[in-house]
Each structure stands twice: as structure tokens, then as C-alpha cells.
């Protein structure tokens, strides 16, 4: 650790990255912009998942439900003539209401039961969307007003990622975040120390739903189409979680690394190999589970990179 200089290095890197990202549209093809857009969507989902999955230790496998609800809510409002801000806000509201409602029964489950239960939540919502045909277009999906929104969507997604990571950072340094960590370590003990666990668990879920639904709204605005498989399918459900776990849950850098790795992998392999995507995901999951459940960020071979980046010590709560 180099003291003050060490602490500043990540900030320089961030500033440089921000500068590059803002001038990118003039320099590269739309194809690259779309790739970065997708990366940002996945990263937002991975980082927001991590608030509940990593900080609090409850693996919410149904996180993509918030994305889907945000997307559908936004799409429906866009088709009724509302502009993006109002439509996206509507999507977020639907999503957080759902999160608040569903947290009451779901948090009675613990551990793997919670994971499975939240996973079931996805198919429940998907069935609802399929069946409420008049509102949601059923299994055919809905289209939103056409237009080439690639560049503004790109900027929006980068902003949303920045906001989400900042939000996550602020949580991790707050009293609320400390409570989440304590819930993860030992919920019963946390409760007996005065932590209002039921309330905080619901709040964490609601907080995690906000970025997910917001980015869902921007997604549908950019792609101008949403359907149940795109919103609630296995790929969108599992990718962010695999990313967060691969990179390392409970950290800020983890989801970023995982998202970077997986979107690159998708880019390189998916077109060449139309099959076996799930097998690869599954293989990655098994490998992480057996050999590095802490993710890349905590792996021994990764330490030199962390030191070079100036984040030598593990990200800890108290930086005094």
C-alpha cells in the first residue's frame, strides 16, 4: 500500500475510464456501443443483485423478475404515449411494489429454500404476464415506439451503472450496510443485538429492485421489444448471478469483473457455438462452487492485480 497515492489510484482510473466512455460514440461503431450497453445492463443487474445476495447473504435467484417488471411496465407506458422518464419511473414503481409485497412471504424462507423460492417467483410472474394477454401482449411480447436510441441508451446505461455502483458503495459504508453484513453472518445474533432484521431485509430487496427495474426500462426503450423469454428467461435470470459469484460477491469490484468476463465470453463464443451456453454457465458455477466460492476478487492469484490497481487491502467497511 502506498498510502495516499495508493488510495488515489483507483480514482484516477475511474476518471480516465469516464473520459474514454464519454467520447466513445464518436470513435467506434454502433456495434461496440451495443456491446458496452449490454455489459452495463448485466453489470447493473449483477451489482444490484449483490446487495441482497452478497451483502446480506440471501441468494435471490429471482432478481431478474425486477428487470422484467421494469421492462414491461416501461413498455406499456411508452405505448400509452408517455416519455421515457415517466415510463421508466412507472416501471420502477411497479417493481418496488412487487418487491415490498413479495418480501413478506419470501423472507420466511432461509438459505437454499429462499434461493429456490425466489427462482420460482420468476416463473410465477412469467405465467402471469403470459396470461394477462390484453395488458402485456401475452407470449408474443410487445413492441414499443421504434427509433434508433442506441447512443442515448448507451449514455444512460453508463450513467445507471455509475449510479448503481455508487449506491452500492454508499450502502456498504452505511449503518444499513453493516446491518446487512451482520444478517449475512448470523441473522439470529444480529436480531438480538437490535437489528430490525425483517424491515431491513425487505428494504434491501426493494433497494436492489430499483436499479434492476430502471435498467429494464432503458433496455426495452432501446431494443423496442420485450417478450417473456427475454425478460424472464434463464439467461437473463442466471447471467447476472453467475457474474456476481464469479467475480466475487459482497464486493464492488466482483460484479464488474464477472460482468466483463462473461459478456466477453458471450461475445466470443455465442456466435461460434449456438449450443451449450447453459453447460458453460453450469460448468463455471460448479468450478466456482468447488474451487473458489469467494470469486476472482478473493482468489490468491488475483492479488497482484488488486495491488496494481491500488486496492491492495480487501474492501473493508471501516477505512479509518
Amino acid at each position, binding site marked *: 500500500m502506498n498510502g495516499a497515492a495508493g488510495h488515489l489510484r483507483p480514482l484516477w482510473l475511474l476518471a480516465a475510464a469516464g473520459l474514454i466512455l464519454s467520447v466513445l460514440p464518436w470513435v467506434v461503431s454502433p456495434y461496440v456501443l451495443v456491446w458496452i450497453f449490454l455489459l452495463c445492463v448485466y453489470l447493473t443487474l449483477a451489482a444490484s443483485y449483490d446487495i441482497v445476495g452478497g451483502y446480506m447473504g440471501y441468494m435471490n435467484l429471482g432478481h431478474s423478475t425486477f428487470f422484467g417488471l421494469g421492462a414491461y411496465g416501461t413498455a406499456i407506458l411508452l405505448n400509452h404515449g408517455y416519455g421515457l422518464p415517466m415510463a421508466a419511473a412507472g416501471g420502477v414503481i411497479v417493481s418496488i411494489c412487487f418487491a415490498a409485497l413479495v418480501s413478506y412471504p419470501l423472507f420466511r424462507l432461509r438459505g437454499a429454500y429462499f434461493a429456490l423460492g425466489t427462482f420460482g417467483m420468476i416463473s410465477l410472474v412469467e405465467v402471469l404476464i403470459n396470461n394477462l394477454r390484453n395488458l402485456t401482449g401475452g407470449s408474443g411480447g410487445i413492441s414499443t415506439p421504434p427509433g434508433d436510441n442506441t447512443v442515448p441508451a448507451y449514455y444512460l446505461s453508463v450513467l445507471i451503472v455509475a449510479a448503481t455502483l455508487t449506491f452500492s458503495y454508499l450502502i456498504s459504508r452505511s449503518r444499513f450496510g453493516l446491518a446487512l453484513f451482520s444478517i449475512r453472518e448470523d441473522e*439470529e*445474533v444480529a436480531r438480538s*443485538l437490535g437489528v430490525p432484521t425483517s424491515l431491513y431485509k425487505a428494504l434491501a430487496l426493494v433497494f436492489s429492485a430499483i436499479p434492476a427495474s430502471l435498467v429494464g426500462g432503458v433496455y426495452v426503450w432501446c431494443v423496442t421489444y420485450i417478450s417473456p423469454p427475454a425478460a424472464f428467461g434463464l439467461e437473463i435470470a442466471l447471467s447476472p448471478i453467475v457474474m456476481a459469484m464469479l467475480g466475487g460477491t459482497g464486493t464492488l469490484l466482483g460484479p464488474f469483473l464477472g460482468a466483463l468476463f462473461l459478456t466477453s465470453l458471450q461475445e466470443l463464443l455465442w456466435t461460434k457455438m449456438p449450443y451449450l451456453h447453459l453447460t458453460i454457465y453450469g460448468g463455471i458455477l460448479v468450478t466456482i462452487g468447488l474451487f473458489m466460492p469467494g470469486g476472482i476478487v478473493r482468489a490468491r492469484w488475483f492479488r497482484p492485480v488488486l495491488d496494481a490497481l491500488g486496492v491492495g487491502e480487501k474492501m473493508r467497511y471501516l477505512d479509518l
Partner: protein
Amino acid sequence: MAPLLECRDVTKIFDGLIALAQVRLELEPGDILGVIGPNGAGKTTLFNVISGLVRPTSGKVFYNGKEITGLGSNKICRLGIARTYQLVRPFASLTTLENVLVGASFGRDRLLPFRERVARAREELDFVGLHERADEPAANLTLLDKKRLEIARCLATGPKVLLLDEVIAGLTASEVLNIIATVRDIRKRGIAVIMIEHVLKVVMELCRTVMVLNCGSTIAYGSPGEVVNNPRVIEAYLGTSDSLHRGAGARV
């Protein structure tokens, strides 16, 4: 004036097993009550009921005259009752200071700003003698230090009643002296203590009143001297001469 803590006829039945039967206790501010009894007597269950982890089947618990039976354990903590655990349960991946900070942030002092809560946490770490280990992950502490951490964590919530569950178990003789000194210091702060212990010597030395539980029922309640000479207590721990002759199979 109502006692600080009172249990009235607390009964807890688990699936046909009577863990607690009509247990009563009264605690005044500054008191120190020892709870002893053979294994499985219901001592930890009693703590679980008082601290809100478990709802009693019948009976009531009162704190400062107000009923607290069935309140959530976080509310009970805020009212001023804190407890440690028989098998230490630190927040393993958090540091020692962070552990205690949880207590400071959600107990009596939860409305204080960050810096002051951290200061409170450091105070409690100093009190138990862990200030040198403030930044170590709790998982790396020795058993004695983990026990001290649990105590500090509880104290940081600003309790008026501290429930210590077999805090001495597993410690060496000198470590035991350390903990006894800490308990005395806790009493000097005006905090009432209930301690579950197996080591009779410690209980006799520290506690003004002793309660003996066996199979969920109170079989003695009085000063250490009275309790030690109570024939029912002797029988519970050693058996009568009859049952000793009948053999070990009688007690399971």
C-alpha cells in the same frame, strides 16, 4: 416498584418435551443471579424466552413492570436486555471493532452519529481488553477473545440486564479469572447479570442469589449457601444413594 426483570410461571413445551415448567425469577438493578443445573435442565431455553428468541407456551416476562413476552428479540435488546451464547457466535468475516459496532449502532446509542458510535465501540473493546485486536477478523480470535468480543458486543447495546450463557466453558484457569474480573467490572457499571454456569465455585463466588433448574423446574432458589446444602440440589447433581446403587442406566 416493579423488579427490573421478572418471569412469572414461564413454561415452554417443545413437542411433548417440557423444557421449562412454571419458572419464576426476579431481578433488581445491579443484582447478579446464577442459574445452575444439570445439562438439559432448560437453562438456555430460559435465556431464549427472556431474550425473545422463543415464545413461551405459557407464562409472562416483565421488564420494568411492562410485559415483554413474545416481543421480537431486536425490540427486547433495545429495551435493555442483551445476551451471549453458549457456543460463541461472532460475525466471522467482520473485524472485532465492526462486530462491536453492530451492537453500538442498533442498541441504545443507535441514534448517535457514526464517529461517536465507533468511539463507544472502542470503549467497550477497551473495557474487555481487546483494543489491540480491533482490526482483526473475528474468525481469527482465540476462544477467550471471542468470548470477550461477545461481551463487548452486548455491552455496546447499552443493556441494563446482561445474560451470560456459560461464558466460562472451555477456558483455562487463568482465563476464567480474567472473565470473573470482567463480570465484576460489569456489575460496577450497574448492569444486572444473570449467568448460567456449570462451574459451581465461580457461581458461589460471584452470585448473590442462585437458582437451580432441573428438568425445567426450579428446585432451589436462594443464597449460594442455602442452595448448596439443599438436599434436592445434591440429589439432582449426584443422585441419591438409592439411584447410585441402581446404576448409571437410571439417568438418561
